[in-house]
Structure formats: structure tokens, C-alpha cells
């Protein structure tokens, strides 16, 4: 007796359809799984046998062969328990024929416990998306996963508590429909809970006007930014508040981000609406920064997708790790190759770097003198990768301030106010790039940059003067123009003006930028 139903395997963040085939024939009783299963999949034989028996069914005393195809992709985890159990029950004709007809067009995923209860699995969003693409009638999954799967609309997802529940639902489709209705109600309540509350606000940062302005520009155009300054001047404070001025994720982005995050253990099952802020310590391993492992998992750079990757004490990171960032910064994704499979994780993030100006930290400080020799300082800056620095558009200093300045400084703007400007700026950019591959000014190509420099307004003349004085490279000029564009967008100007270009120059040619 043969039966076939569908399930999914995860490759990076994408799911592919896997068909679970079962063949039951007479012979010496045995239970074999073929099709490149890993240890956890192989162990599912024991769980399936127990779960079937404990759910009140009979486990067929025959020769059972399970095939997971395509057979050349490694199947991992305990997620195939449910499809295998259902396939065996269908093949041994313990389910009524009406239900079998339904099951044929459905997908299953889930881990079984010995008493037949279903346990949640990782990566459900990608699977639900794939189920939608392959036009399955229903997608059966553990009830805990249902909330996540519902993020992808247009699929009929069915969540069950146990194996019996799955069989009952298949036999009686009405149950599934009523469940869907309930879920929708559930979502409405949760949306309110998930509102943006960061407990941080930009108004808490006193002084550092230039740095704050630079961060606003960086957020508006998603430019990478580097902050250099002595210890304790507010670099980390500003960086942590950066997400509070970024707009919420759009629904599409939300799903993209949640898809990545649901592959990790700390994922709490809710749709992610805040932009992620990742702040890895400099002792991080290579695999956890870029992603990796035997079955590759997303690294910090992918977890920061559509958000901020903040590398504090940048120079403390091993040089090799930093060099690894080159390609992801350019391509906005990272491909990890394992056993003739390529795992592709998206990683379009905004890089924020904080560093001290030298080893002792006080180079150029007004009050404290630096203890480093000139050779030490140049060695320090040489250790920071040139190609990475080259990709950072905005480089600013965060100098130490007099305490009296901080007290006297006027009440600064709240995050909400700044966020409003940033949102407007993002809207302008969305309009500009609607037919393009890029999304933000920082990603704009050379054709855009050329079109922004209009010869009649004196921009070109000023730019040439800047190039001559500061000896700017080609990439520096394009970075400068991108920042200028963002400043103009913040002021809602159609064309860039000389005043915008002059301001932008400050973020590119400070003392630090010249290293």
C-alpha cells in the first residue's frame, strides 16, 4: 500500500517542498526511513510508533518504508514526525476515505511526543509561504505555530494540539474554518500589545548636536555611520537610540525579518515590528557574526536585516571578522556553502560603528592628553580595514563636552519628532526608487548620483573645489553626494543645494575621516 503527502525542509530562510512517501507491504515487520535523514529524523520512528499507539490507532505490523524526497537534500530535525505518522495511518487505511482525499492535498509539519501531542517547530513562516506558493489546501501544524503562520495570509493554516486533532480536522473541515476566525480575533488584541515602546528616547542625549544630526541623516538615508570619540562621550547612547528614530517595519519587511528570527532559539513567536538592533560583543565568533554551523543558521548580520548592526569598540573586533563584512555590505546578502547546497541569508542592515580615536582613547581630547605615540596612533588606524571604512558614508567625531555645556544645552528633540522627519524622508525615497533595485539613498547607483549634480546651480563648481582641497576619491565623492541627497530629502527639496553639500562635507572630511 502506498501513500504520499507533502511536508517542507528548510534551506537557510527558504522552505522547499518535501514529499513524504510511505510504502507498506508484507514481509518481516520493519520501519525504515530513507532519503538522507539525520539522526533526529531517524529517531522519529520511535516517536511515531508510540504516538500512533497512544492515540488509539494500530501500528501496522508490516514492512514499512518511508522515503523523503528529493533524496539529495539532508532532512533535519524532528519536524517530520507528524507527516510520517499521518502517512502511515492513511496508508494502513485507518482514516476514513473522505479525510484521505483532503490529506492528499495538504502539507504537514510537526514534532510528536510519545502520547501524540504536537510540539512547535522552527521556521514556520517560510513553510507557510511555500505552502501558499504550492497552493496546498490546508497546512497542518502544531497549534503553537499557528500564530506565526497566520502572518502569511491567504493560506489555510490548521493548528492542532495532537495527532487525533489533525485526523479530526481532516475529516471535518468546518473545524478549521472556525479556528481561522478565532485566530483573526486573537491577532487584533495582540497588535495593540506589540506597539513601539523602546524605553529610550533621543531627548535624553544632551549636547552632541553634530552627532545627533548625523545620526538623523544616517537613519533617513540608511547610511552606514562611524562614531569616534573618547570614552564616555555618548557614542553607545546615541547608537542605542538610533532605532527609536527609524520607522516601523512595513508588513513585507516584517515577514522578511520574522522569517530570519524564527530560525533562532530566542524567537518568541510574535511578528517582529520593531527594527532589529543587534549589538554583538567583540568576542563573537566568525560563524555567529556571518552565519554558519553544520546546518547554517543566520548570524548577527542577518539578524540585523532591515535594522541596525552596532559594533561597539570596533577596533577590538578581530581583523578577519571585519573583513568578512565586506561582501555582505556590498551584496546585502550572504551565501554560505555546505555540501553542494548554498544557504542564502539576507542581510541588508545599517552598520553603526563606535571606536576610540586611539589606544588610550584621548587623542584629540580637549581636557585629557593622549598617552599614545604617533606610531601607535597610526598603527591603531591602520588596523582598521580600509575597504570597510570606504563603505562608511558618515564619519563623525563625538568629542567630550564640558559639563556646563551639557547642563546649559537646550531641551533636545524627542525621538518621535525626529522619527516623523525620517519617515517622510523614507517616503520620498520610496517614491524615487519605486522602479529601481535600491530602496534608500545610500544604495543609489552612479546614474542617480550623476543626475543629482546639476551643473547650473554651482554644485559642480563647489564639488570640484572640495575635491581639490580634500583630495577626495571617487567613492568619497559619491558618498558625499548621497549624504547631500538625504539632507535635501529631509528638507523636502527637489534639487540639492550648495548649503546641503556644505553640510554634508562635515560628515565626510573631519579629522577622523582623513585617516
Amino acid at each position: 500500500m502506498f501513500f504520499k503527502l507533502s511536508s517542507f525542509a528548510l534551506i537557510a530562510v527558504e522552505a522547499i517542498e518535501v514529499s513524504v512517501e510511505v510504502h507498506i507491504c508484507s514481509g518481516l515487520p520493519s520501519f525504515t526511513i530513507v532519503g538522507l535523514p539525520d539522526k533526529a529524523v531517524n529517531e522519529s520512528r520511535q516517536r511515531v510508533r508510540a504516538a500512533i499507539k497512544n492515540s488509539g490507532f494500530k501500528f501496522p505490523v508490516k514492512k514499512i518504508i518511508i522515503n523523503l524526497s528529493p533524496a539529495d537534500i539532508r532532512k533535519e530535525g524532528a519536524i517530520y514526525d507528524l507527516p510520517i505518522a499521518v502517512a502511515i495511518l492513511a496508508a494502513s487505511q485507518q482514516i476514513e476515505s473522505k479525510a484521505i482525499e483532503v490529506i492528499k492535498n495538504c502539507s504537514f509539519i510537526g514534532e510528536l511526543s510519545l502520547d501524540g501531542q504536537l510540539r512547535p517547530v522552527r521556521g514556520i513562516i517560510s513553510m507557510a509561504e511555500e505552502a501558499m506558493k504550492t497552493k496546498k489546501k490546508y497546512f497542518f501544524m502544531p497549534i503553537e505555530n499557528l500564530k506565526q503562520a497566520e502572518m502569511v495570509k491567504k493560506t489555510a493554516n490548521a493548528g492542532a494540539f495532537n495527532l487525533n486533532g489533525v485526523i479530526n480536522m481532516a475529516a471535518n473541515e468546518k473545524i478549521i474554518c472556525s479556528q481561522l476566525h478565532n485566530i483573526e480575533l486573537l491577532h487584533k488584541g495582540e497588535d495593540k500589545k506589540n506597539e513601539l515602546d523602546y524605553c529610550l528616547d533621543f531627548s535624553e542625549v544632551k549636547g552632541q548636536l553634530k552627532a545627533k544630526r548625523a545620526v538623523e541623516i544616517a537613519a533617513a538615508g540608511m547610511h552606514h555611520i562611524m562614531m569616534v570619540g573618547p570614552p564616555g562621550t555618548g557614542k553607545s547612547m546615541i547608537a542605542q537610540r538610533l532605532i527609536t528614530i527609524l520607522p516601523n517595519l512595513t508588513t513585507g519587511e516584517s515577514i522578511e525579518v520574522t522569517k530570519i528570527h524564527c530560525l533562532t532559539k530566542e524567537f518568541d513567536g510574535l511578528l517582529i515590528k520593531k527594527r532589529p538592533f543587534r549589538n554583538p560583543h567583540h568576542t563573537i565568533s566568525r560563524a555567529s557574526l556571518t552565519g554558519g554551523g553544520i546546518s547554517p543558521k543566520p548570524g548577527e548580520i542577518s539578524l540585523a536585516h532591515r535594522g541596525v548592526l552596532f559594533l561597539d569598540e570596533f577596533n577590538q573586533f578581530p581583523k578577519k571578522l571585519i573583513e568578512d563584512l565586506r561582501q555582505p555590505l556590498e551584496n546585502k546578502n550572504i551565501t554560505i556553502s555546505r555540501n553542494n547546497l548554498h544557504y542564502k541569508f539576507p542581510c541588508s542592515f545599517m552598520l553603526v560603528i563606535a571606536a576610540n580615536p586611539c589606544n588610550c582613547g584621548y587623542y584629540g581630547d580637549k581636557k585629557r592628553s593622549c598617552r599614545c605615540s604617533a606610531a601607535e596612533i597610526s598603527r591603531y588606524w591602520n588596523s582598521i580595514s580600509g575597504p570597510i571604512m570606504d563603505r562608511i558614508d558618515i564619519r563623525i567625531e563625538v568629542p567630550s563636552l564640558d559639563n556646563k555645556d551639557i547642563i546649559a544645552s537646550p531641551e533636545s528633540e524627542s525621538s518621535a519628532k525626529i522619527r516623523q522627519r525620517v519617515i517622510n524622508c523614507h517616503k520620498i525615497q520610496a517614491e524615487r526608487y519605486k522602479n529601481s533595485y535600491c530602496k534608500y539613498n545610500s544604495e543609489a547607483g552612479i546614474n542617480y548620483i550623476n543626475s543629482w549634480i546639476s551643473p547650473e546651480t554651482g554644485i559642480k563648481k563647489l564639488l570640484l573645489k572640495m575635491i581639490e582641497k580634500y583630495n577626495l576619491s571617487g567613492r568619497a565623492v559619491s558618498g558625499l553626494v548621497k549624504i547631500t541627497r538625504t539632507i535635501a530629502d529631509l528638507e523636502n527639496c527637489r534639487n540639492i543645494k550648495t548649503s546641503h553639500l556644505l553640510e554634508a562635507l562635515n560628515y565626510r572630511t573631519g579629522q577622523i575621516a582623513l585617516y
Partner: protein
Amino acid sequence: MHYIKNHYNNADLNKDISELMLHIIYGLKVTPSAFIKEYKKRFSDIESTISFFTNGKNHADRIFNSNNYQQGLSKKEIDIGKIRKILFSEDAFILNISEKLYPELLKQIYNPPPLLFCRGSKIKTFKGCIAIVGTRKNSAYGRDVAIYLSKELSREGITVVSGMASGIDYWAHKAAIAEKGGSIGVLGCGINVIYPHENKNLYSQIIENGSIITEFIPNTPPLKKNFPARNRLISGISMGVVVVEAPEKSGALITADFALEQNREVFGVPGSIFFAESQGTHCLIKNGAKLVCCIDDILNEIQQFFQVKNRDKYKDIKQVSTACTNKRKNNNIVFNNPRTQIIYNIIGYMPKTVEEISMLSELNIQEVLQIIAELQLENIIQEKSLNQFVRI
């Protein structure tokens, strides 16, 4: 001396005497101070001095005085042939004390080096030298002072002398070379040893536009004890020593001490009373060094040595200081844009941060940044260190 290639034709140098002196000092191991003593005793008659030492009878009279500055003399034998080879390959040459090219002022000090190892070309052209010395760990202020003084002195045709170290020395040399004034670097090591290594570029620049001198034989490492000896040459070759920035214990102060001993002018540049880097110079000023607040302070003092060209001569200190303040006042520029004017007025000669400028001008940060960028492009102001701006 076959190893002199480009810079001097043979007529300029007395190669035979230099060769004999090499033999006496490094072959016969007569200490340089003993040689000089004898040389001075014989009223600077080099030939009789040489014959005194080379004459076999006088072996017993050889004086070994280890307390005097020894020129890297060690107990091990020095291969004169090897030295010659190095000098040849480095395109260096030897100046002995009897020569016309040997700096006149240096001849007058208590124990001038009998032999100077030199590289470069411009040693002949100097009108007179002023030494600019200071700490290796300078502040931004110290750097600016060194550059300013060095530039102005070079314009005046005065050669700037310094010790080729990092910090103030570096900036003094750098500015002098940029002004095409030429510069003399005095080393505390052999002529073929580059120390500190980051000054490698500076070496080649000085060789092109000035010269490097040392009393130490090639291959001498930069030992600690060499530097006080070098400092006596820095002050000895110069008409005066300007101490730009020096903490309380500094090699620059040793140079100043030598300058006093050698009857040279000592100048001190004041700094902030809160800066450790300026405590040494303040001490000097307290003890009678001349306070320098503009270039005329130096020029006025050294008029006795040479004619100051293209400059007004001042009779007393009062005139000098009024001239200085007038110059500062007249520097003010008038702008059409009132906002630019406000910002320009706020930015003075002491570094101010963007923060302060924004607060004092009550303009928002965007405007401040725009105007600052504009003024920087026009070379009216410049960034000193992190976010701090001053007028040029």
C-alpha cells in the same frame, strides 16, 4: 675622498685631513674631547695637532677621558674601511673642524665634534640657524606653534635646526621644508640609522632640501646617552633655541641648558597653565628666557647676528608687542553674510567645538556646519583636533 659624489667638489673638502682624523679617533682611539683640547691648545692648527697624535712618541700622552661625551666609541675595534663604504653608499661625507664649511658657531662651543658626518646639500647656504625644540608628545597647540615659527623663520631665510625626533621636532622640520627654507637635522645616532622609523619620509625630504648632521660614526644605535650630546650640537649650531612645548622633565630643557652654557639666546613659548606640556617652558620663562608670542620676538633678539630683511626693526619690547597685536587685529575679515560673520567672530585662535559655536551663535547645528564647511573651504578656519576649529 672618492666617495663624495654630487654635493661638494673636491676643492671644498679637505679629505686628507678628515681621513687622518678618522684614523686618529677611531684607529688610535684618541677621544674627541682630547683631540679638541689639543687642537685648541695649538690655536686651531690642525696640521700640528694631527702630527702630535700620529707621532709614535706620543702614545703615552693619549688621553682617555671616559667622562666626556664619547662618540659611540666602544671597546671593540672599528673598521675604518667599513665606515668609508657606508659613507659612500649613503652618499654621506665628513666635515672636519678645520674646514670653512664647518659651522662657525659650532666651532666656538666648549667641545665641538672634530668630525661631522653629513648628508644633504644645503649646509652651505644658511644665513644663520635657530633651533626649534620640544616634547615628542606635543599637543595640537604645540604643533601649530612649531609650524608657525618654523615657517616664519624659513621665510626670513633662517635655517631651522631640530633633532629629527617625533613631535615638535618633526613639525618644525616639516614646515621648514615646505617653505623651502632648508633645515638641519641633528641626529643622536649614526648617519645611516633612521630613528624613529616613522620619520623615514622626513629623512629623504631633509636630504633634498637641507642636511642631516651627526657626530656619531655610522651604525651607532640611538642610545639614551647620545641624546644629551646631540642636544649640545643643536644649541651649538644655532643662534638661539626656541622651546615650543616641554613638560617639566624634557630633553628640550637640556638643550636650553646647553644654549645658556654656550651663550645662545633661549626663547620659551607660553602655553596654557593647565597643560603639563607647557610647564617646562613656563619654568624657562620664569628663569629669564625670552617669551615668544610672535615671530618678531625672535627676530628682534637675533638682529645682532644678522640683518633682518623686509621687516620693521623694533627698538624695544613694547614696540614688538604692539606690532603683534596690530597684526592680529587686522586679520579680521568682513563677510557679506551676517551669519558667517557671527560664526567667524566666535571662532578665535583658541580651538572651539561645534557645540560651543552653536551655543554661542544661537544658530542651529545645520547652519553652523554649513558655514564651518564654507570657511574651511576658503582656508579661513581649520579643524585642529576632533571637532575643534580655529582661525588659520
